[in-house]
Each structure stands twice: as structure tokens, then as C-alpha cells.
């Protein structure tokens, strides 16, 4: 019986993954496909935040650093050394993981708001350094990814929609990782840390190491998303990939979808990215403003009403159903 439901669930997930890959068969407009592609990028980046911010409740406001490192490393390697993003991307991911290790080493003993503030400050420091290192990074003006030719090897295509399959594959990879972590020993340890760090230590959990693994895995995901972003937009600048605004945005997607479940970033980004793109589509400042007002208000509403996000409504129902009146029983030695 259990096996059946397990296989049933797996079949469902496989069907979802295949459906995601088959979206181009619907022959949607280029504009819609562009939005779908960008949504994929943000799902992956937000999944990176979920691993540390959601699963372990280590609320970082600096995830853009990881996204930015991914974007800048692959782009700079491409511009200066003509290295394919297929190599530059993983190198960027490694760089981000190392940055995460360094940051984690500094901040993991801080609690709550202090943790958030220091990650914010460190992210701003990275941004300042990147803006200053103009000769290599292009400085505040940013750096373009020169279009060489339509090529899978160079990860360059003429239209955003051409990146869709790769972006969708990355989403499947990221969510598989997030789901795997959630139901693995690591996932349970992270949840334990989220609930009570002292109790987690008493249960034999190496809190520092556990947080570090989650933070580094998350950095890898966000960095890979960053590389893909750079290839799609053909342009990287500090404002778009290293800003506080992006850090907040990634957290926001995850929180609104549900920061404690693997599919939270999917739900959040799939809801909000198209909404934002549609409202920004008009091109006016007012349109962009309106979209983000909605983001802000949604965030306010969700943290006040249901801090577990969209997933919280589902989870609530699950636990209510499972809550029979169970009297405590006698001890059986």
C-alpha cells in the first residue's frame, strides 16, 4: 500500500517534469515563452534561498551575492578567456559555494535579525567591490556578454525562449535536489535546527556543519541561475544581479510559495514572476511600481496571515485531518 502511493507520487512528479519540458509544444507566443524562461531562472535562484532561509530558518538577505557570483564569474570568464558558460557556470557555482563557506563561517553564530543584517551588509560589500573593480567587472555600468553565434556549446541563442529547455531542466534538477534534501537526514536536521538549535545539538546534530552544507548547496543553485540569467539577458550589472532588491525578491518568491517545502519557490515564482513581467510589460515606471506594490502587499499579507506561505494552507489541512484526540497511553517498559 505504501509502495503504491510512493510510486504514485513518483509518477506524478515525473509527469510534472515532463509537462514542464513539453511547454514549448504549446506554441505559445515568444513573449510568453520569455516569461516562462525567466520564471524558471527565478525558481532555481529562489530554491537556493529556500535551502538555507526556509529549511533552516537562517534568514539571509544576501542571496543575490550567490546569483551575482554565478552571473559575473561565467560572464567574465567568457569575456576575458572565451570560456564556455558550460564550464564557467560550474566554476561560478564553486566560487559561490566558497563564498557561502566564508560568509557562513562568519555569520552562523548570530541569531535572527543580526544574521539577516550581516548577510545584507556582506552582500553590499560584495557589490561595492564589484563596482570598484571596473577593469574586470565593468563596474557600475555592468558588462555585456558579446553575442558570438547561435550555439549550444556557447550557451547562446538569439531569443530568450530558446533557453527554455535548459532553464526547465535546471528547474527539475534544482527541485529534485530541494525535494531530496527535504526528505533526507539533512532535511530533518535542518528542520530540527529551525525549531530549536539547542535541542538539535542535544540530539547529536552538528548545527554548524548542517547549516553550512545547506548554505553551500543553496549558493550553487542560485549561482547556476545567475549564469543562465546572464546568458539570457546578455548583460550583467550590479543593480540587476547583486542588489538588495534581488535578495529580497528571491526570499519573497520562496516565502510566498512556502519557504519550508521544496515546491514553495516554484509556486511563488510561478505566481509572481509572470505577474511582475505582465505589469512591467507596459514599460512605464508606474507599471513596474504597481507590480512591486502588489509584491509588497502580498508579502505583508502572507507573513501576517500565513507565515508558511501558500504551502501553509495545504499543510494546515493535512495536520488538521491527522489530529485525532489521542490520549496519552501507559508506559510500556
Amino acid at each position: 500500500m505504501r509502495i503504491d502511493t510512493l510510486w504514485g507520487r513518483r509518477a506524478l512528479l515525473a509527469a510534472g517534469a515532463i509537462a514542464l519540458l513539453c511547454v514549448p509544444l504549446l506554441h505559445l507566443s515568444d513573449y510568453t515563452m520569455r516569461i516562462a524562461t525567466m520564471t524558471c531562472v527565478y525558481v532555481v535562484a529562489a530554491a537556493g534561498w529556500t535551502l538555507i532561509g526556509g529549511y533552516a530558518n537562517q534568514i539571509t538577505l544576501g542571496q543575490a551575492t550567490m546569483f551575482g557570483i554565478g552571473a559575473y564569474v561565467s560572464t567574465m570568464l567568457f569575456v576575458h578567456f572565451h570560456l564556455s558558460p558550460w564550464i564557467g557556470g560550474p566554476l561560478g557555482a564553486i566560487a559561490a559555494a566558497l563564498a557561502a563557506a566564508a560568509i557562513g563561517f562568519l555569520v552562523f553564530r548570530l541569531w535572527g535579525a543580526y544574521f539577516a543584517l550581516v548577510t545584507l551588509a556582506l552582500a553590499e560589500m560584495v557589490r561595492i567591490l564589484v563596482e570598484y573593480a571596473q577593469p574586470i567587472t565593468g563596474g557600475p555600468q555592468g558588462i555585456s556578454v558579446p553575442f558570438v553565434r547561435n550555439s549550444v556549446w556557447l550557451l547562446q541563442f538569439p531569443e530568450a525562449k530558446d533557453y527554455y529547455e535548459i532553464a526547465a531542466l535546471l528547474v527539475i534538477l534544482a527541485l529534485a535536489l530541494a525535494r531530496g534534501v527535504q526528505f533526507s537526514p539533512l532535511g530533518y536536521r535542518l528542520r530540527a535546527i529551525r525549531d530549536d538549535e539547542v535541542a538539535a545539538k542535544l540530539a547529536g546534530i552538528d548545527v554548524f556543519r548542517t547549516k553550512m552544507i545547506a548554505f553551500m548547496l543553496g549558493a550553487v543553485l542560485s549561482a547556476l541561475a545567475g549564469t543562465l540569467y546572464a546568458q539570457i539577458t546578455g548583460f550583467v550589472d550590479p543593480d540587476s544581479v547583486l542588489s538588495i532588491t534581488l535578495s529580497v525578491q528571491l526570499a519573497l518568491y520562496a516565502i510566498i510559495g512556502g519557504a519550508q517545502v521544496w515546491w514553495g519557490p516554484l509556486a511563488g515564482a510561478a505566481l509572481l514572476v509572470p505577474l511582475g513581467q505582465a505589469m512591467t510589460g507596459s514599460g512605464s515606471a508606474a507599471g513596474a511600481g504597481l507590480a512591486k506594490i502588489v509584491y509588497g502587499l502580498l508579502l505583508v499579507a502572507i507573513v501576517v496571515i500565513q507565515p508558511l506561505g501558500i504551502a501553509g494552507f495545504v499543510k494546515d489541512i493535512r495536520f488538521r485531518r491527522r489530529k485525532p484526540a489521542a490520549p496519552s497511553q501507559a508506559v510500556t517498559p
Partner: protein
Amino acid sequence: MIAVDKIAKRFGGLAVLGDVSFSVAAGEIVGLIGPNGAGKSTLFNILCGIIRADGGEITFEGRRIERLQPHRICRLGLTKTSQIVRVFAGMSVLENALVGALLHARTVSQARSEGRAALQRVGLAGSEELLASDLALVDRMRLELARALCTRPRLLLIDELMAGLNGPEVSTMLDLLRALRDEGITLIVIEHNMGALMRLCDRVLALDAGSIVAEGTPEAVSRDPRVVESYLGEKFARALNS
């Protein structure tokens, strides 16, 4: 099993523990008594590595542990249940136990079945899928015990487990603790329920103002004038003796 040598701890200017020394042999059940503020819970926290002592040595099964992190100490086989009950409130009862079992289990499903067995032992069978925060306080204490058992301790420190239990419940809990000892788990128990303590312990240590003021069989310690004065009160001692 464990040897504690001259452990001292100050919080700010206040000396909470002053050169506490004692040892516990494998297979013993040792009671730890003392008035509120005597330093009992602080001592437990130091043994588990949650608080670092200012000085002194702790040797657990031949290994010095006073500078180790709590998770390392737990892995060696020493953990505790807390006076302020610490369960993972957002997880189910089974998941709480499972987290403890993950220390030794190779897979989640193995940890799950170990967790189930531990819940059975402490009397929480049937509550596996409840949210831990929905349990009554007494059951949360049991859950903490189950989680601690799942880490396969060789020495278990128990901080006030009987509070809130009624007579029959105390008896079954005592049976459980004795059974644990018979399986090879050494126990140090902080308890205010003197009746329960006298039935359970081989030996009692009395702590007052950060030092051990008496040590011996439960009967001897309960008659010790210093213990009577500082903790038990004359009246209670008379009632015991009559």
C-alpha cells in the same frame, strides 16, 4: 562511567558552581537534589556541553569531554532531557524521535522505525502523527525522553521528568527508567519528587549553592542535617522518619 573533577562556573559575578566533583559508575542510577538555584541544571548543561565550565575536568568513559561541542558529546553517548521541555514544535511526534535516531541510523526509514519503537516505550504509541506542539506538557516530556533514547545514550541525564505525573504514571515511569538501567544505560536524575527518587536511586548527591553538601544512599542523604536544613525542611524529614 563519568568522573567530574572540580567543575566551576560563574555567571557574571555570581558563582553558580564551585569546584563540584563526583563520579558515577556504569549501571548506577544517581539522584541529584537541591533547592532551586543550587546549580543542578547548570551542572547538566555543562556535562552536555551546552555551557562551558570556567574550570575543571570531565572524563566520560576515559575521554575528556569538557571542551567538546554538545553534538560530539551526544555522539559519544551522553545526552539529557531538559527541564524547560525542548521538543521540535513544528515537527510531528514521530519526526521528533526520528531526528534523534538519525545520529546512528543509516537511512530515514531506519530512523523512523527506531523512533517508532522509542515512542512505544515511553507510551506515545498512537500519537506519532500529531504535531509535537499539540501534545500535553507531560507527553512532551515523554517525547523528549524518547528522542534522547533514540540517540542511544550510555549516560542519560534526566531533568525533572516526574513533574505533573500522577501516582500510577510515576510508577510506570520508574519501571521504564529501571528497565533502561537494566539495558545498560546509566542515569543521573534531577527530581523534586523525593518519594520517587528514594524508590529509584542507588545513590543521591545533594547540591546546595553550587557545591555538593551530601552524598550517599537516598535514606542517608535524606537524614543529613545539611540537606534537611537547605532543602527538605524539618517537617518533611520528620514525616519520613516517623
